[in-house]
């Protein structure tokens, strides 16, 4: 059927492809995050990655909820929708179902995505709609000026928890895996190269891509992730996940993760007892392993896993929806209004 949308798409198809630079993705709006905010890096990496994706900017849409992170769409020179608190995932779901031809990105935060919007997030992940979720995790409510968030650590003293938070935090990666996400990754605002790689992989993944980005809020929660992002502590505290490679870390790559039953443990590869061959080898297609790796996040004695936990092919909701419609049209023919109105039991009055 020729819809008005199809007519527009047909005429847009004749527009010659453009070779973009990152600047093409920068809007004319002044960026208004606090100076020093980790969001600047995420914006820069996203704009850097966009030209490599081969998707025209008019086919790209950024959808956000409410919070500091959710101002993101205003700074991207693509289509954008700054929606309401927690609902970006649902707005984006509707958009992608209506328009599977678009590249849809969701920008959310730990409060927007996991507190008020927790329900939509888990349902998006299980449905596996082909969109990308960037969850900026700064473990604090920034825009409302400093309350604890669903990822804040127990005991955290904030404006709303003067005696320390008694909420047990979510681990976003475990939550996403528990919701049957097909792509789950973690990256760092202060590691631009790693973030670019992860963003590209997320864009390429067919299905919902869930990317948690550790993001420093230098006003209300400064240094929350410094042990994972700063030069002097990073090597000792982060293990980077690479598909097909053993899990090694440490200043001289002298440590690694070995599985003891289902329990990851830190071993040395330099003291002669274990070698690299004894170490756990990452496999991003292994769901069971992804749960074990994500759970390391909650074990202070273990290095923090960063990278792609899981990347699995699974049918997407939008593809299946399109397929059902195509099959129905094939079987019954293009819907005809006159036929519909005259269907079923009818009678004549003369």
């Amino acid at each position, binding site marked *: 059927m020729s819809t*008005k*949308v199809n007519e527009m798409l047909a005429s847009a198809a004749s527009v010659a492809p453009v070779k973009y630079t990152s600047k093409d993705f920068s809007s004319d709006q002044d960026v208004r995050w606090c100076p020093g905010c980790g969001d600047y890096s995420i914006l820069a990496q996203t704009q850097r990655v966009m030209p490599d994706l081969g998707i025209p900017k008019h086919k790209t849409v950024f959808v956000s909820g409410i919070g500091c992170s959710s101002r993101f769409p205003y700074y991207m020179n693509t289509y954008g929708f700054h*929606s*309401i608190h927690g609902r970006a995932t649902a707005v984006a779901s509707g958009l992608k*179902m*209506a328009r599977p031809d678009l590249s849809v990105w969701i920008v959310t935060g730990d409060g927007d995505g996991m507190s008020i919007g927790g329900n939509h997030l888990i349902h998006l992940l299980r449905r596996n709609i082909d969109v990308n979720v960037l969850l900026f995790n700064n473990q604090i409510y920034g825009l409302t000026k400093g309350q604890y968030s669903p990822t804040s650590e127990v005991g955290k003293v904030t404006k709303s928890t003067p005696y320390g938070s008694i909420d047990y935090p979510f681990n976003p990666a475990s939550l996403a895996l528990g919701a049957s996400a097909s792509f789950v990754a973690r990256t760092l605002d202060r590691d631009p190269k790693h973030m670019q790689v992860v963003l590209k992989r997320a864009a390429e993944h067919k299905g919902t891509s869930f990317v948690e980005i550790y993001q420093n809020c230098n006003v209300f929660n400064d240094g929350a992730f410094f042990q994972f992002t700063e030069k002097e502590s990073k090597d000792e505290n982060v293990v980077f996940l690479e598909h097909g490679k053993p899990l090694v870390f440490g200043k001289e790559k002298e440590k690694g993760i070995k599985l003891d039953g289902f329990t990851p443990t830190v071993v040395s590869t330099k003291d002669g007892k274990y070698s690299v061959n004894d170490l756990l080898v990452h496999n991003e297609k292994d769901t069971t392993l992804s749960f074990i790796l994500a759970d390391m996040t909650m074990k202070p004695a273990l290095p923090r896993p960063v990278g792609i936990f899981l990347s699995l092919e699974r049918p997407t909701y939008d593809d299946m929806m399109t397929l059902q*419609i195509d099959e129905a049209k094939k079987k019954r023919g293009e*819907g005809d209004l006159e036929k519909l109105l005259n269907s079923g039991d009818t009678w004549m009055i*003369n």
Partner: protein
Amino acid sequence: MAKNTQNLDEVTIRFAGDSGDGMQLTGTQFTNTTALLGNDLSTLPDYPAEIRAPQGTLFGVSGFQIHFGSLEINTPGDQCDVLVAMNAAALKVNLGSLVDGGAIIVNTDGFSDKNLKLAGYPSNPLKDPAIQKYTLYEVDITKLTTLALQDMNLSSKIVDRSKNFFALGMMYWMYNRPLEPTIEWIKKKFSAKPDIMESNIRVLKAGWNYGETTEIFKVRYEVGPAKLTPGKYRNITGNQATAWGFIAAAKKAHLDLFLGSYPITPASDILHELSMYKSYGVKTFQAEDEIAGVTSAIGASFGGSLAITTTSGPGVALKTEALGLAVMVELPVVVINVQRGGPSTGLPTKTEQADLLQALYGRNGEAPIPIVAASTPGNCFYAAIEASRIALKYMTPVFLMTDGYLANGSEPWLIPKSSDLPDLTVKFRTEAEGFMPYLRDEKTLARPWAIPGTPGLEHRIGGLEKQHLTGNVSYDPANHEYMVRLRAEKVERIADDIPTAKVEGDAKGDLLVVGWGGTYGAIKSAVTKMRAEGHSVSHLHLTHLNPMPKNTGEILYNFKNVLVPELNMGQLVKVLRSKYLVPAVGLNKIQGLPFKSVEIEKKIVEILKGGK
């Protein structure tokens, strides 16, 4: 033996039994067959919220009333002439709605000691002399059903489930209706279960034959076809008509239809209906909650779909914030509120009109939303098209108000020609030159619909206040007031684009009865009767509640009295009084049931006599 046949102009039958007895199915089958015979009709399904409440209990009683005739039928009937009661509880619950001298057909097997106790009867009401003011037909339907099936070796459960077809067969005999439409339906429905197919058909015929051969029924009735407008008809429920209205609107707009919805009584049937029409490009999304229902629709609207969300009052409460967003981003979305009894969970399966003020005012900030209300089951089709037209043309969310009574009720519907329906073709903005997201159409004040995928029109929208023209975020005080006034004016201007209100009856007089929504039939019946008796009464029924037709005030001022019957505490009357400063009075009923015409007639007489 030869039986008497009497002609009737109209009759009302009520089928009542346990919620597991299949009374809704029985009623629906009787309705469809009656429609095929060319009678005018109106139905009222009346069922409990429980799917299968404990057997024999009063709260488990499910009823279905049909009023049909050779005359114009506007309501499901104030009282029934015939009550079919499958057990004691059904008799107790429904006897009050039977006219004096009416007929009762009971399944005597449903009057065991246990049934009587559950129904709270100290003794068998069938033996009580009080029942003699009715014509009582005692039939052991259970036993006769079992006998009809005795050689089939069926489980007692299947036998028991067939007995509603016996009752249906008897009623078909009594009102001289053919069995074939129901037999065809049974064949289709149970094609995979030949045992059940055969047993139901057998029992249906057994019921008919029982009427024909037994001597307890002395009279048969003939109800001739009604003089309806010539044309092709079908029977349609409000929910089905609503669903079809949106399919038609999408076709006429050359857009795909997107429904984001969360199941809720009594709106779910619209979701069920639309989910069948994938070949029409209809996308239905059963969302995780009411909020995702509306926000997914807003997302689809951003993408260029005719986007709708179906719900009932509690769901509207949850969608409220998102509707404010739709007002701010000025995207077309239709919210269908199939109203039910409230507040809170209220009466999920019962009807009410108490969400008008919610639709008008229930949002934070100044957030006007146009409102369209359907008046009859078949009218839901046109109301859906009109709501879509306004949404698409004015780039705005729109409320379509129906209610449980319209949703589940049905009537014969004159099938329109697709070519007679209004053209709703939309024009997306495609020219990059001079594009601004909030540059408005001079006449309608609608902003352009520029959908993602259009080269050169990349822009951002959102819930923060917009700068006039550019749509950029703006905190400027003067701009905010300007935008609030613009959004209000945009909705007000719709009044220039809707038909003027038309009074049924004289344009001037002693009393104007003003209604909206599903009370149309009851008000029309009452006013017609009062006029026939020589009273100076007219009827105005509003389809557009925001904005109202421009001549509404003028009409009101032409009458000495204004009466507003509503199934709420007085919501439209409050609006009319404040907007037009008329001393309108309300007639209010909040029982989860539609008005009876007689209730309105009584009030009309009271007002005309000078009382208020």
